[in-house]
């Protein structure tokens, strides 16, 4: 009886741990629902590059300031797949040449964004407006004369320069950003059912770049998917 309870407790703990570490987002109904789709054997991949606006709406952090976000849906079909994020590579070609980018970890992205936010706010100006309404009961002067009071109003503004805490720049912010990025990242490991999630690739240049996503896993054919420009 005690052994049964212990096993049940261990199973419950494992379920809680599994639920807590679940990564990714809900996959769309099929690979055809993504902007680009490719099939290789029983495996189907659906891919979409998020526009800056979509990234802003999907994340609390300003991920679009340094990263290209790709949504990937994996439909393993029969037999399943051993999914590795490092099997995806983003190939970019611009006027300065070609780039090969590997996905960045949530820890790296969060650290970079926190640092950028800190730097961005180092010289910012903070404005603190103030307004107040009061009532004066009047005053009496040194000669005993009474002067009437009345409603008093005041407005003011305080200005602070430098040494302020810019948005999303604290260690708690970094941890929160990391949690969100990890929660929404493409899951890894053995997959038998459709899964989806995001990959974060660093922006190599500010110039216009054409991207292609490459998937190359051991024992599988290489899949190359050209990504159309994201809508502004």
């Amino acid at each position, binding site marked *: 009886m005690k052994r049964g309870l212990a096993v049940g407790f261990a199973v419950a703990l494992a379920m809680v741990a599994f639920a807590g570490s679940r990564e990714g987002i809900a996959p769309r109904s099929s690979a055809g629902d993504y902007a680009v789709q490719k099939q290789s054997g029983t495996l189907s991949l659906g891919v979409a590059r998020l526009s800056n606006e979509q990234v802003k709406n999907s*994340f*609390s*952090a300003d991920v679009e300031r340094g990263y290209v976000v790709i949504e990937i849906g994996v439909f393993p079909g029969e037999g399943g797949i051993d999914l590795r994020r490092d099997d995806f590579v983003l190939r970019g070609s611009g006027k300065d040449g070609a780039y090969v980018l590997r996905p960045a970890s949530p820890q790296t992205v969060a650290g970079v964004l926190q640092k950028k936010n800190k*730097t*961005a*706010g*180092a*010289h*910012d*100006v*903070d*404005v*603190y*407006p*103030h*307004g*107040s*309404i*009061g*009532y*004066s009961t009047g*005053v009496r*002067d*040194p000669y005993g004369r009474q*002067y009437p009071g009345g409603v*008093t109003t*005041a407005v*003011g503004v305080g200005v*602070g*320069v430098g040494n*302020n*805490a*810019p*948005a*999303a*720049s*604290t260690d*708690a*912010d970094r*941890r*929160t*950003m990391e*949690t*969100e990025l990890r*929660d929404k990242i493409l899951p890894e490991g053995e997959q038998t059912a459709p899964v989806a999630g995001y990959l974060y690739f660093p922006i190599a240049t500010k110039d216009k770049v054409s991207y292609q996503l490459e998937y190359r896993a051991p024992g599988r054919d290489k899949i190359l998917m050209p990504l159309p420009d994201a809508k502004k």
Partner: protein
Amino acid sequence: MKARLFLVLLLLVALAVPSLAIPRIHLRRVSVGAGYSHFSGPYYPYYPGYWPGYSSLYPGSFYPPGYWDPYWSPYGSPIAYTLRDSDKGEVHLKDAAPQAEVYIDGAYAGIAKDLRTLWLAPGAYNLELRSGNQTPVQKKIYVLTGKTVNVRMAEVKP
């Protein structure tokens, strides 16, 4: 000589440029309030141009008519309602039913009509709305300092 001076100036500009980043202006804390002030002396509020008063700047002296006491200031506001807090993040419940019960990390927070705007410390929270006999809807939200999260529960599947 001129060329050397030009080079020195160029060097100074190059060193200064990183610290001359264009600043952004943030509207931070806005406060409004009402208050009561009581004068107990030793100086008196000044009526501009008409009333001689006693200045704590020059003890024992009366300043002449028209003199503006540098220590006189508008009444302060002992009660202030903070509309914006710089070390928290803002959460807007966009489309929640007014009477829906709001739970944050499993704890009851109030009803939606009173919680259209929430201020939370940075972190990840489980937000849940319970409305009548409807299936509760849950959403994980990520709050960052100084940022606003717009929550649309209609987009969440129960």
